[in-house]
């Protein structure tokens, strides 16, 4: 026996110090004296190079450690960031940068840092997935496609603190765009010194936001402390944000919350019940994302038939779907592609342009169905393939739809459950009749949703093609007049319902727990969410 175990002990002793480099965990999740909070991340941030980041966890971290020319306030309105003043007209924009904006090494943030970051994001070699978001700048698209050199980008550094931008076509929401991650600055000398490893570790990044990252142990922890060089440091109350845990498991996070180790956790259908029995105060928030059923409009698909789509529209009840199938608080019944939070001309878009609510009317639906059968020349609608993701909730939702279709319209539904990448592959190749899809906003303007079903949009995976729709999208994208834009989007919303292009299911809500002593946390539909930048801990 001695022989057997000795090697184990030896190896253990050898390995233990190697893995012992992981940071110590702080005592309390919200410490008043040190103004320190502890969090759990759902995953390791995959990409902290702001020019290339695409996901929410990276956006969360970058939103705390970086700052763009403009930013959002707690109500989601655009406020000054690095730029203290700006002017935007139909041909271009000018930004005046504040003189006290500094990088975490103390050097000033200059206009060139923005020019450099935007050029880098557009370089074909960078292969940034979000480079398209810069396309409103003159020559940006050509640079990205390798047709023009990067220095042809129509952005001019007038002096260290003035930046002018020329537009490719007029754009009504450039101020919202520059608050987005891809528009964050990067400093030329630092970036070039780091080369390929830029963003790989805490030491391979330079920060200009309210916090700076001091420590990043991959898949284990990530620490941020207040950036003493940040221009508005006097209004930042937290001294440190420690992401000490990284796990996707929502139950593990709930356990950590109950054990007083983290200040915030998001709940799902399962952990919601546990949190209720634990008598936790559950809060809810609408994420701004919309979920809907998308049809396949490719030739030969029965779903190209409008009457069939109308029949489905009149039996699907979003209210029932939200209450009985999703069955967690916070979700809103889907009525439109445009979620309720989007701004319109003066007020919210949805209160200015009401979305039609198709009646749940079985007789009407069957009427449409009969017409569809005649047009398609069939006795019975062939089985429809419903493509969904592989989460437990997707399966539940798909089964509900299967029941509704069978019971109300006698249409058989074949559920095709696929993992993330396979579902995307099938969506792209058009291997479905209906697909459960969703969309989250990139920036706070109606066009982040509006152009989704334009014929040229690659995310229009059902290939809906309607010249009227395309025309309205162009107005929305290029007009500078809010009323003209919103009228176009109002009309577009009408087409979506009238033509039953999609079946809106719900506007996503999340339920979460937040430490009662942590105040001033902002939940956002775009940008870093949850936003702890202006948070503080009360006694």
């Amino acid at each position, binding site marked *: 026996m001695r022989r*057997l175990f000795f090697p184990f002990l030896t190896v253990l002793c050898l390995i233990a110090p190697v893995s012992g480099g992981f940071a110590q965990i702080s005592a309390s999740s919200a410490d008043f004296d040190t103004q320190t909070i502890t969090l759990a991340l759902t995953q390791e941030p995959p990409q902290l190079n702001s020019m290339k980041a695409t996901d929410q966890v990276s956006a969360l971290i970058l939103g705390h450690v970086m700052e763009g020319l403009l930013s959002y306030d707690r109500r989601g309105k655009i406020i000054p960031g690095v730029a203290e003043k700006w002017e935007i007209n139909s041909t271009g924009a000018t930004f005046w940068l504040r003189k006290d904006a500094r990088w975490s090494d103390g050097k000033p943030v200059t206009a060139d840092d923005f020019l450099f970051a935007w050029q880098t994001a557009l370089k074909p070699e960078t292969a940034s997935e979000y480079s398209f978001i810069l396309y409103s700048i003159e020559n940006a698209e050509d640079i990205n496609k390798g047709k023009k050199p990067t220095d042809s980008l129509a952005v001019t550094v007038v002096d260290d603190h003035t930046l002018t931008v020329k537009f490719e076509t007029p754009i009504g929401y450039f101020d919202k765009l520059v608050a987005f991650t891809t528009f964050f600055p990067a400093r030329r000398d630092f970036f070039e010194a780091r080369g390929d490893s830029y963003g790989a570790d805490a030491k391979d990044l330079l920060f200009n936001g309210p916090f700076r990252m001091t420590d990043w142990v991959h898949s284990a922890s990530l620490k941020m402390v207040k950036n003493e060089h940040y221009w508005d440091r006097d209004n930042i109350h937290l001294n440190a944000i420690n992401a000490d845990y990284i796990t996707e498991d929502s139950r593990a996070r709930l356990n950590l919350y109950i054990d007083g180790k983290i200040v915030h956790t998001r709940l799902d259908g399962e952990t919601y019940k546990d949190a209720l029995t634990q008598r936790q105060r559950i809060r809810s928030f609408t994420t701004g994302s919309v979920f809907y059923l998308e049809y396949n409009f490719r030739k030969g698909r029965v779903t190209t038939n409008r009457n069939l789509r109308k029949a489905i529209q009149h039996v699907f009840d979003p209210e029932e779907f939200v209450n009985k199938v999703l069955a967690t608080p916070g979700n809103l019944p889907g009525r439109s592609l445009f979620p309720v939070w989007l701004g319109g001309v003066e007020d919210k878009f949805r209160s200015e342009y009401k979305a039609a609510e198709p009646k749940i009317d079985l007789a009407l639906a069957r009427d449409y169905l009969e017409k569809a059968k005649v047009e398609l020349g069939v006795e019975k609608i062939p089985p429809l393939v419903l493509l969904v993701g592989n989460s437990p909730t997707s399966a539940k939702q798909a089964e509900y739809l299967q029941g509704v279709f069978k019971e109300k319209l006698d249409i058989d539904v074949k559920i095709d459950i696929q993992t993330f990448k396979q579902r995307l592959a099938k969506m792209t190749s058009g291997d479905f009749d209906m697909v459960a899809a969703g969309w989250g906003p990139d920036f706070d303007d109606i066009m982040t949703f509006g152009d989704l079903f334009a014929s040229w949009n690659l995310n229009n995976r059902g290939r809906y093609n309607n010249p009227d729709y395309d025309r309205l999208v162009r107005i929305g994208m290029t007009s500078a007049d809010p009323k003209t834009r919103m009228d176009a989007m109002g009309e577009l919303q009408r087409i979506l319902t009238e033509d039953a292009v999609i079946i809106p299911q719900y506007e996503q809500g999340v339920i979460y727990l937040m430490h009662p002593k942590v105040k001033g946390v902002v939940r956002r539909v775009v940008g870093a969410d949850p936003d702890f930048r202006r948070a503080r801990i009360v006694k």
Partner: protein
Amino acid sequence: MLAYTLKRLLAGVVTVWFIATATFIAMHSVPGDPLMNDKAVTAEIRANLEKKYGLDKSGPEQYLIFMSNMLRGDFGISFTQQNRKVNDIIRDHFPVSATLGLLAVFFAAIGGIVWGALTAIYRNRLPDIIIMFLVILGISVPSFVFAALGQLSLVKINQLLGSSVIPVAGWGTFGHMLVPSLVLGLGTMALLTRLMRSSMLEVVNEDYIKTAKAKGLSPIRIFFKHQLRNAILPVLTVLGPQIAAITTGGFVVELVFAIPGLGRYFVQAVQQLDYTVIMGTTVFYGAFLVFMVILVDIIYGFVDPRVRLQ
């Protein structure tokens, strides 16, 4: 002995090559690819990405490039964590999984041998029945149930004590490792107990035990020197592959206890179709498993004098 070892190592290399090739083919046959994401990208951006990752080349070309890089010990850059080399991922996270795994095997081996010997001694009596009942539980209940239960118990214990004595999740100190490694080792412990029990029962009727008894040796000496040592051999055989299996199979435990191990990368890479990480982790784990099996075979020769390797 040397020739035997060399022969086994050569066979091992062929096995690893086979694993790598099979994984490569399987991975590329799955619909979708690592560059596909929630938001669709234009043909130009797509082309830029393909060029950057060498996916613009044909399948056989990609295979050759992969193989020649692998021989030089380079698995490339991860697709999902675009700034990290797969080698760095393995180097950073395997020690964590290995620590957890070895501790788990340590618990499993001690538990398995002790319980197994006990059940054999108390054969068909109450301790035997109780332990064997627990063994069935240990084998049939999946580790995520134990993991969730283990963590929940920690929360309850901490609530009772009014302060968090044992960390609920995370990594860094021995306290963090204790419960996860116990949970991870339970299945193996159950397996080893059963193996040890049958092995002990087999040995107890052997002639040499009777001889030892006839010689008048003390029961304790017989137990340790003759019975246990002989009975332990089959346990040793499965221990090698079990170490590999436990070290690589800690995905669920790593997830629940927020442990930064390699198991998470191993599983998530498949979900993300992160080609380079799939290849890196599979080949690495494959080589590790093969190596453990060979190692056990060689150790066997030392433990059991009857086995003379040729």
